[in-house]
């Protein structure tokens, strides 16, 4: 069989993330990201062959499957248009579906957008509509994930301030990212520690915000990457994995689907030692403690040792393995976009286009997303060099 087409990321565009983007309409929000991505790629809408959209539940905006409605605003009329929905991992999954179209040589130039306009409704309501026959989710997503974090803390015997260190790092990184939702110049170790304990062990300042926002990427074939005005990011590997939400034998602290997804992506990218070979990671950390948890799940540390990397500053912007130089999900969280932001920021890093939060010499980066009850995973590895 012929080798698959190489996939290049030649354009990345983001909106300013905010709690409420009252200055743009819903299609206007997407267009803001799309036009920046097209501009980065040196393209116009007419150059695009197909559009792949992704977002989390439709109840967030009170709009059922809005993609046909968005076709006009995205220049998709007369083109193929797909809508992906895989819970919180959807931004990553969407990018992978879009890249697959290029990889399989179905299309040469694909536009992909992840978005959410959470200000359109009450997010907590949209996430947990009361279902008469199901047990009510007690106190939202934080209440769901906090027990697993507590289990991690117990298993790993980590000091109980690791989460504070993660939140401090990510929010400080966000100060270097003009698109980030939260810019808190006065944040400190003490201010995080003193913030309200919402779901013990999760404090308010260790929790992601609820944001409006969109990210768009332009993906092309090898010829498109070679001709790109700015350096492209080349896709070295990508995969998604899913497992059941409730199954006997599941490990919610370090889900098997995450480990297998990472192993698949590393194998495709020829990575045998992720800690050594990867220069930067954008991972999906909606609650601070997920940084050490995913460091272990993704093979950057032995089981029980992830927190040590955080504590030693390895994951800081000037550390040996910077994690979330953009400020991450802890600083901007338009849910349906959050996964693609991780993928896009990974691409920006290896393209040398990350601005003030650029990691010096980044050549190979991992973008990571997860969703549902930590059961859906999507990842890609992008590099400055062709695979």
């Amino acid at each position, binding site marked *: 069989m012929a080798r698959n087409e190489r996939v290049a990321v030649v354009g990345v565009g983001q909106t300013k993330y905010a709690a409420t983007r009252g200055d743009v309409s819903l299609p206007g929000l997407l267009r803001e990201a799309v036009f920046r991505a097209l501009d980065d790629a040196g393209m116009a809408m007419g150059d695009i062959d197909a559009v792949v959209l992704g977002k*989390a539940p439709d109840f967030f905006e009170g709009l059922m499957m809005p993609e046909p409605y968005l076709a006009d605003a995205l220049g998709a009329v007369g083109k193929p248009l797909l809508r992906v*929905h895989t819970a919180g991992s959807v931004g990553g999954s969407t990018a992978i579906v879009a890249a697959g179209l290029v990889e399989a040589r179905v299309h040469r130039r694909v536009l992909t957008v992840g978005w959410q306009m959470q200000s359109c409704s009450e997010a907590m309501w949209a996430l947990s509509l009361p279902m008469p026959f199901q047990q009510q989710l007690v106190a939202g997503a934080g209440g769901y994930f906090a027990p697993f974090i507590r289990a991690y803390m117990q298993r790993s015997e980590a000091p109980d301030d690791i989460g504070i260190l993660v939140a401090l790092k990510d929010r400080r990184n966000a100060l270097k990212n003009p698109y980030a939702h939260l810019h808190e110049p006065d944040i400190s170790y003490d201010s995080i520690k003193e913030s309200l304990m919402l779901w013990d062990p999760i404090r308010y300042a260790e929790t992601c915000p609820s944001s409006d926002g969109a990210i768009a990427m332009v993906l092309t074939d090898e010829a498109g990457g070679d001709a790109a005005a700015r350096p492209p990011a080349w896709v070295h590997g990508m995969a998604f*994995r899913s497992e059941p939400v409730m199954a006997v034998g599941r490990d919610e602290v370090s889900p098997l689907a995450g480990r297998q997804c990472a192993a698949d992506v590393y194998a495709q990218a020829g990575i045998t030692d992720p800690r050594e070979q990867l220069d930067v990671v954008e991972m999906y950390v909606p609650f601070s403690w997920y940084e050490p948890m995913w460091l272990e799940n993704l093979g950057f540390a032995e089981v029980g040792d992830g927190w040590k990397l955080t504590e030693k500053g390895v994951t800081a912007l000037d550390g040996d393995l910077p994690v979330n130089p953009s400020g991450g999900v802890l600083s901007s969280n338009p849910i349906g976009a959050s996964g693609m932001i991780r993928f896009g920021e990974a691409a920006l890093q290896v393209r040398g286009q990350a601005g003030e939060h650029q990691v010096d010499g980044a050549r190979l980066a991992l973008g990571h997303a997860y969703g549902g009850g930590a059961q859906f995973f999507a990842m890609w590895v992008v590099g400055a060099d062709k695979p």
Partner: protein
Amino acid sequence: MRDVAIVSFAQTVHSRRRQDVNEVELIQPVIQEAKERVGLDRHDIGFTCSGSSDYLAGQAFSFVMTLDAVGPWPPISESHVEMDGAWALYEAWVKIQTGAADTALVYGYGKSSPGDLPRVLSRQLDPYYFGPLWLDSVSVAALQARAMIDSGKLTQRQMAETAARSRAAAKANPFAQVKGDFDVEAILAEDCLADPLRRHDCPPVSDGGAAVVLAADDTARRLVERPAWIRGIDHRVDSHNLGARDLTRAPSAALAAHEAGVSGGKVDVAELHAPFTHQEAILRAEIPLDGAEVNPSGGALAANPMMAAGLIRLGEVARRIIDGSADRGVAHATAGHCLQQNLVAVLEGDG
């Protein structure tokens, strides 16, 4: 391009209301049947993709629970589209083209019974200009039917004939919901639901689902004697702005048919996803089918499980090729209001 075929298809018996089962209980037997027909179990599936809608279920992340039906353990490579299962099949076809999988399980399902479907579907319209009007899906379709009649392209009698023909054909379809012999004059004597649409011009509201197994190359040949090869598949979208469209046309259907290569040979059988009678006429004008048998299953007028009705069109054509009663067929799926988005596939048997 790899040769990829539909090798298996299963569907529910569609009905107005399946109050005995939840979504996972609805779709699980269908998924199991689709796999068992070709002797596969869950470990043999390389990729899984499904289509469903939270707004039908009235629940966010509704597909998460339904995933249990495939037994995703150990973890699987899986994705989901908030679209009809026909587009899930497209995503799976692309995945197989990348070589990342040789087989794929595709399913789509929808229970429309929990909500008031025409009202739920109104939530798919432009939220600023159309949404606040609560224009329901039947009324939007009636605008299109009116445009067809006013343009002289169609009469109400022809619409009634489509309804009668579809429901009569459905008598041979054990999975159909509305079937039987209906008199055209009697239909024409009925009052309109939304002028010019009568009840008979509209699809039934259905609960149901379907599943398909795809396989590539020699794997497909090993699983069935006569795989239904996907020789072309393409999908396109038109404008959402009803005022900017010629509602008597569906250019995206014509473009998808062209890209899928429909005109490359004689078409024995076609399954068109035309929920309303007038939409069959629009699609016949856009997709070159000369002389083909159209909607022998009764089409969406006989059963219209949302998020599965398009996938069922692919499955029904594949079934005819697998059983040898057709050599070349065209399957069509639609999404959005007024045939806004369309997918066309050409399926062929060997020899």
